[in-house]
């Protein structure tokens, strides 16, 4: 999935998850706030209703007390007070109706309160009327009987019923609010966890899709730089896959360009050989002709002075000229030869087999025994595991390295050369073996170590002959085998060359882009005419 979305789509997806959560979060927050506000106002309203109801009752109690006072004292003030209280109670009932509409459920309770209150008010008014009509005795009777108390009690009962109902409703509402809050809390927390989880999952998927593929791409760049075959192309259709495709195309074109270069080098070198034959041959012929002339002159009748001059020409000048021509031609021949050999190293097809490296190395050491004895060196060959590669190429490889080691020994101390393998017993682990050729010779100065494997650079000129392509050749061979070569050297102490090769046939063949990149570098070789190079 990560492979087929463009970078923009991936970004949007990653961005969308948290944003989505935030939207939901705000929505929930708003809802909670509104519910809380509603609950708040409901509670306030309930409080008002309760207060209002109590005020009705209180007013009526005041009315009763005032009425009693009037009956007992006959003072007009009490009558007025009673009247005022009754009016107040009625006003409060109306106000109660504004708080609790008649049509609502609670309205029926208020209706009952009103009815009972009205009944009580009527009784109070009856008492007042009796007093006004100077029927004091009846008024007192009226007060003495329990009618008033009954009506008051009824009113109280109605009020209490109403208030209980209110409080019940209130409790309900609070419970509901609580529950709603808890639910929303849980919802928010689990939502947060879910979004975190989703974001992390998406991040992880995109890590696989982006970071890791970029790592693979970087690795491919490294393989190209080392001239090794690339890993297979990545599937997918997003920008990274596109980049990968372009990369493979680029690597392929590099390879093609290099192969063209090699082909060019090869055909030019090849064509140059023919005129070279003529140059070499006819400079030889000139020598022969001069020799014959010399013989003729000696046996002739030329005056002695002329004879001397002719003799000098034939004996010194002409041969010297020819000698310089021949030297130059010989140099050209070696360069052309080296070029041919180098370009052939890249072109010739390999036959890959299990190579008995020990046998090859022993054979190489044998063939060099003259040089080895001449330098008085000691060569030891350790246990060398088999390698997977082309036998001829591997022989060339070791021939070059070993003859270098022999030829660049330090004349001031006895030379020792060791050829072995690291982890000879662990070859099974990762399928690679590191062979080494170690000498205690002249060494390579630090400055030249980085340019070691470039062609046509001789580091110790005069120490031995050769055109200077041996290490370039070796490098080409190692690259084509998918291996690596490096050197450790300390001037004045010696040099060790390490070569890593596959020890057995690789189980999976990587896409066979044999990118050969030839560098220009310095090296210290003596070009050994290895048996593989001699035809016929």
């Amino acid at each position, binding site marked *: 999935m990560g492979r087929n979305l463009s970078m923009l789509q991936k970004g949007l997806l990653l961005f969308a998850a948290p944003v989505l959560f935030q939207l939901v979060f705000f929505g929930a927050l708003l809802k909670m706030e509104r519910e809380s506000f509603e609950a708040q106002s409901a509670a306030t309203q309930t409080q008002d209703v309760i207060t209002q109801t109590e005020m009705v009752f209180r007013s009526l109690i005041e009315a009763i007390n005032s009425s009693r006072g009037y009956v007992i004292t006959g003072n007009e003030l009490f009558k007025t007070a009673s009247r005022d209280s009754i009016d107040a109670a009625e006003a409060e009932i109306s106000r109660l109706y504004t708080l609790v509409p008649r049509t609502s459920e609670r309205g029926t309770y208020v209706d009952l309160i009103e009815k009972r209150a009205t009944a009580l008010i009527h009784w109070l008014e009856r008492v007042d009327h009796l007093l006004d009509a100077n029927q004091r005795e009846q008024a007192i009777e009226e007060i003495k009987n329990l009618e008033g108390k009954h009506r008051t009690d009824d009113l109280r009962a109605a009020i209490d019923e109403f208030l209980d109902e209110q409080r019940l409703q209130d409790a309900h509402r609070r419970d509901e609010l609580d529950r709603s809050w808890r639910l929303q809390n849980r919802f928010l927390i689990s939502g947060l966890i879910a979004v975190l989880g989703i974001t992390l999952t998406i991040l992880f998927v995109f890590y696989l899709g982006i970071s890791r593929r970029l790592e693979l791409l970087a690795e491919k760049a490294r393989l190209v730089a080392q001239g090794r075959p690339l890993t297979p192309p990545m599937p997918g259709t997003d920008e990274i896959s596109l980049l990968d495709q372009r990369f493979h195309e680029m690597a392929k074109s590099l390879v093609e360009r290099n192969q063209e270069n090699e082909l060019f080098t090869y055909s030019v070198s090849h064509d140059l050989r023919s005129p070279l034959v003529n140059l070499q041959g006819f400079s030889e012929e000139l020598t022969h002709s001069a020799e014959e002339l010399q013989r003729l002159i000696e046996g002739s009748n030329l005056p002695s002075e002329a004879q001397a001059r002719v003799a000098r020409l034939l004996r010194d000048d002409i041969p010297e000229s020819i000698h310089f021509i021949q030297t130059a031609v010989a140099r050209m021949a070696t360069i052309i030869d080296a070029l041919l050999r180098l370009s*052939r190293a890249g072109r010739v097809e390999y036959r890959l087999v299990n190579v008995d490296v020990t046998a090859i190395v022993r054979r190489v050491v044998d063939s060099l025994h003259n040089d080895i004895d001449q330098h008085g060196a000691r060569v030891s060959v350790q246990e060398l595991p088999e390698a997977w590669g082309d036998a001829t190429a591997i022989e060339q490889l070791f021939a070059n390295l070993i003859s270098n080691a022999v030829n660049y020994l330090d004349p001031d101390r006895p030379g020792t050369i060791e050829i072995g393998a690291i982890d000879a017993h662990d070859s099974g682990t990762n399928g690679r073996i590191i062979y080494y050729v170690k000498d205690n010779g002249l060494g390579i100065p630090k400055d030249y170590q980085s340019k070691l494997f470039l062609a046509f650079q001789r580091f110790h000129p005069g120490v031995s002959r050769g055109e200077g392509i041996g290490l370039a050749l070796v490098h080409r061979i190692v690259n084509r085998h998918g291996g690596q070569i490096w050197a450790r050297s300390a001037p004045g102490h010696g040099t060790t060359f390490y070569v890593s090769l596959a020890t057995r046939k690789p189980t999976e063949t990587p896409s066979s882009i044999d990118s050969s990149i030839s560098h220009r570098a310095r090296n210290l070789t003596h070009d050994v005419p290895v048996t593989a190079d001699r035809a016929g």
Partner: protein
Amino acid sequence: MTFQSLLIVLAEDDDGHATLIQRNLKRSGILNTIHRVHDGQEALDLLHGEGKYQGQSPPTRCLLLLDINMPRLNGIEVLRRLKADSRTDSIPVIMITTTDSPREVETCYRLGCGVYITKPVEPSLFTEAVQRLGLFLQIITLPHDKGGSSKQLEIVQPD
């Protein structure tokens, strides 16, 4: 037993190379006649009595020095045709060339050339080559002792 002298046919397109070879052979004392042709087609014409050599009977006994890189028809193709034709398949052939590419060498031997030498043609290598051919094709070098200091040879075949 009587012997017949072999005609050495040299197929070489480069005049310089041809001259060098002829001089070297002479210098090493070989007395046989050397006939130079300039490319593969001419060589075949000579050996079949066709084309440029129409009407002339082809040489009965010869030794062919065959360069590989020639225009029109290269040495390898000439070799192939010679060996495919019963009239010419027993002619001894020495391939001479500038290249030493192993693949080319293999092809030549597979096609049946006797020997393969790289240029420039060292006289000693040449006589060695002839001697090697001799093992297969009954040609020998007959020394001519003319009493002179230089050794002289003639390449012959028994009748």
